[in-house]
């Protein structure tokens, strides 16, 4: 989209991320990756789903497999669990801080709301046709909904995880998730939802790299970024 004569100059837009938010974003990213990597190793030890599926070990976190087998006769489960229950605290404390600050500062209300069905439908159809432009500093309706969605998925995964960790002390929570065995299934699909979000999230960051700049340096500016085919 070039600014031809007679057309108004595209507005120069700015994406700002305060330092606190950037730190929380990257701490969260690290904690989530550790939780996923170690969680996959834990899953492989005794899969929760009744299907023939396991994560390849090279994708998991838990240290030297053959050393674990030789020394302790297990597949690095103890190491993976140590990671999982260590990173758990980082993830939970960070998310709590993010939620409190997000609500108190108005970040959620300002940036993630409102989402009207009409706006969502419009943006969703545009996204499917690869015609949804990215405006720095402003989230479209699909994006807003995705952020709420992944926040919900993270909370669901944390709560189902707690109910697996403490099925006696937190037995009411475990009951809510349909008992110990079913809570493991919920925990798995919570992870799957987060991973699905990550795939889209990272792919879009690659398409619009200035968002990554903003999340690292705190500020990025640019003219509206339109999909390549509109720019011809």
């Amino acid at each position: 989209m070039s600014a031809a004569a007679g057309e108004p100059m595209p507005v120069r837009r700015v994406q700002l991320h305060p330092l606190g938010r950037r730190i929380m974003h990257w701490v969260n990213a690290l904690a989530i990756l550790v939780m996923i990597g170690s969680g996959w190793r834990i899953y492989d030890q005794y899969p929760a789903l009744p299907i023939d599926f396991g994560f390849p070990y090279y994708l998991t976190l838990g240290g030297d497999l053959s050393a674990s087998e030789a020394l302790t006769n297990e597949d690095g489960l103890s190491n993976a669990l140590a990671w999982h229950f260590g990173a758990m605290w980082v993830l939970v404390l960070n998310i709590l801080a993010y939620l409190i600050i997000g609500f108190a500062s108005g970040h959620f209300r300002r940036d993630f709301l409102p989402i009207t069905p009409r706006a969502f439908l419009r943006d969703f159809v545009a996204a499917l046709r690869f015609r949804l432009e990215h405006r720095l500093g402003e989230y479209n309706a699909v994006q807003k909904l995705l952020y709420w969605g992944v926040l919900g998925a993270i909370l669901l995964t944390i709560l189902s995880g707690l109910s697996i960790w403490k099925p006696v002390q937190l037995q009411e929570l475990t009951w809510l998730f349909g008992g110990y065995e079913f809570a493991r299934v919920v925990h798995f699909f919570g992870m799957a939802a987060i991973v699905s979000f990550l795939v889209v999230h990272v792919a879009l960051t690659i398409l619009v790299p200035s968002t990554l700049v903003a999340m690292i340096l705190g500020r990025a500016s640019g003219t509206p970024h339109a999909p390549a085919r509109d720019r011809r």
Partner: protein
Amino acid sequence: MTRPILRPTPLATSIERRLFLRQSLSVGALALLTGCDISDNDQVQRILRFMSRWNDRAQAFLFQRDALAPTYAESEVVRDFRYNAYFPVADVPKLSAADYRLELSGLIEDKRPWSVEQLHALPQESQITRHICIEGWSMIGKWSGARLGDFLKRVGADLSARYVGFQCADGYYGSIDMATAMHPQTIMAFTFADETLPAKFGYPFKVRIPTKLGFKNPKWVTTMFVTNRFPGGFWEERGYNWFSGS
């Protein structure tokens, strides 16, 4: 306690779409994790051990003395209960009632050893609870036996001490916190599914603790001791969390 090692089966490669998914997953995760599995770094191991000790304290704080583990109906008891130890079932200790003595040690007043007959004469109660393994599997079983807390009182154990430790006939050893030892559902189980505890499940008794993971339930116990010095345990030295409460 260990088990046959489960290996994830490779994904079906015949389906093209799955293959594609797996490949893209692999590339993405490879970039993130390969060479990034820093688990074996000594400093990382120190941090993980520190976090595990922190988790012991957090779990002791979460532990409620009078919160009971959920119980189940007789109809939910698993008939073919899983044998689980770090050696094959053929190698389980076969202790005889004639020779067996439970030795008591540490901060206990009356250290006279106990025979199987004496143990079985203790008042007993049963429970149908869920045994949860650290690997993720769980099974509902029925155990009967004497409350460990009552036994400790009876032999004059120092109940203000911090730990109760166990030595087992198979070389296994472990320990629990005093609060868990005194929990009403922590029992010295003499029967499983209404029958005398078979050798493979720990004859003459196993310590059944439904508020802890399976490996914290020692079998073939031959010595019990009370101490203030952290005794650790077999699996704990191999990286598992010590408290491992449910």
